[in-house]
């Protein structure tokens, strides 16, 4: 589904990603964990070309992403949920959900609205369809953002720390939604600091440090018998 091959990324002189090789299978739930600044966001952002690698290749559904085809490929294959929600503040919830389907996927208005309500139900917010984002709590905004991602009908959803900007009491409602989604055949790549949640949904966990993938394995392997010192150091700090 997604493949990163020898991906390097520099911002100016700083090397942020160094030789990232990673393959995500269809339907797989991949969790990325790592210290702050280790390059997790950059890795996920390379998967939909929000960042273009300095060198190396990114394949989505077997297609090599290029500057030219990225908009087309990304539009039809992946959606993203951000730490800071990034809902469009000048539109109500329903418009947030129907804008891309109607404008980009040429879906008739009625159908787009039906789909929007369907996914608002999935995230438990049908009663907020006509509310503006600024009137919603952080947790509600993030659930709307997830519904927006679902409305694109993309087979891949990328989550970059979806609960990091939330007040503690709102984290669970968002995690619950993601856990429920993880039962479906959607390919998910999730960056998170929520270890319990990671353990629950992950088919595989990748640990990053300083721009490299240090360790990779099942949740069980990762939490119970990590091989690398740095992974162990990280885990001992967090748990």
């Amino acid at each position, binding site marked *: 589904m997604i493949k990163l091959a020898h991906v390097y990324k520099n911002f100016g002189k700083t090397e942020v990603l160094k030789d990232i090789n990673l393959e995500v299978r269809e339907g797989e739930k991949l969790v990325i964990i790592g210290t702050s600044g280790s390059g997790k966001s950059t890795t996920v952002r390379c998967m*939909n070309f*929000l960042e273009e690698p300095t060198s190396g290749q990114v394949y989505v559904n077997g297609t090599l992403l290029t500057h030219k085809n990225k*908009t*087309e490929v*990304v*539009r*039809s294959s*992946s*959606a*993203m949920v*951000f730490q*800071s*929600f*990034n*809902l*469009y*503040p*000048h539109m109500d919830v329903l418009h947030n959900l129907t*804008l*891309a389907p109607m*404008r*980009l996927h040429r879906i008739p208005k009625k159908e787009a609205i039906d789909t929007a309500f369907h996914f608002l139900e999935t995230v438990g917010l049908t009663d907020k369809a006509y509310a503006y984002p*600024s*009137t919603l709590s952080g947790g509600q905004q993030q659930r709307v953002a997830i519904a*927006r991602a679902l409305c*694109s009908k993309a087979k891949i959803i*990328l989550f970059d720390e979806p609960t990091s900007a939330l007040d503690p009491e709102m984290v669970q409602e968002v995690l619950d939604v993601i856990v429920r989604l993880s039962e479906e055949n959607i390919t998910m790549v999730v960056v998170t600091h929520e270890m319990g949640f990671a353990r629950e949904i992950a088919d595989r966990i990748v640990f990053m440090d300083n721009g490299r993938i240090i360790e990779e394995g099942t949740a069980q392997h990762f939490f119970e018998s990590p091989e690398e010192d740095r992974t162990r150091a990280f885990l001992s700090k967090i748990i």
Partner: protein
Amino acid sequence: MIGQIFTPWRWAELLSSWQDFAFAFLTTLQVAFFALLLALCIGAIAGVLSASRSRILRAIVRVYVEFFQNTPLAIQVFFVYYALPYAGIVLYEVPIGILCVGLYTGAYISEVVRTGINSIPKGQFDAAESQGFSYVQTMALIILPQTVKAILPPLANQCVNLIKNTSILAMIAGGDLMYFSNAWATNGHFSYGPSYLICGLLYFILCFPLTHWARSYEEKLKASVQGGKA
């Protein structure tokens, strides 16, 4: 002493020529209106380009903006009026006013638009791009609508400047309000005082509501931001 400037017979003179004043006023309105259209179009396009990722486009806009912001409007007008004819390009005064004032104000509006775009959080661009919107769609559907509120007050101020700047036409006998007030008084009426006073009043009537509106709207925006709802 000041009474000499505004004696009744001078006002009577003026009153008898009110239709000519009205015509000059309409000329000014006409120049202002079309110059504003031109400035808004150029300003919006240049503003969007100067926020784009293309270095070449940004550089071109930069040159345009710096040139018009850092040279007097008078030179631009004189150049078109006196110099261009030697290249076979001869324009009437009103089109010159529209062109020069439009280009000049467009440079300022471009900066207003660019500042507006830059004030939008980067996350909005990320969200739009991750959904597959092109740059133009992102601007038109997501970014620019969000900037409108914030840039309306500075746009209104630019509009005020534009209206006042149309008076540059007086320097090339453009038939506008400024030119006419002066020419009329000079040509045998000797009612400079009332003439300039009425002239100023007419500009004021156009500009004051705009300035006033811009200020109160800005206050309102500030209050609503502080109140927590942008």
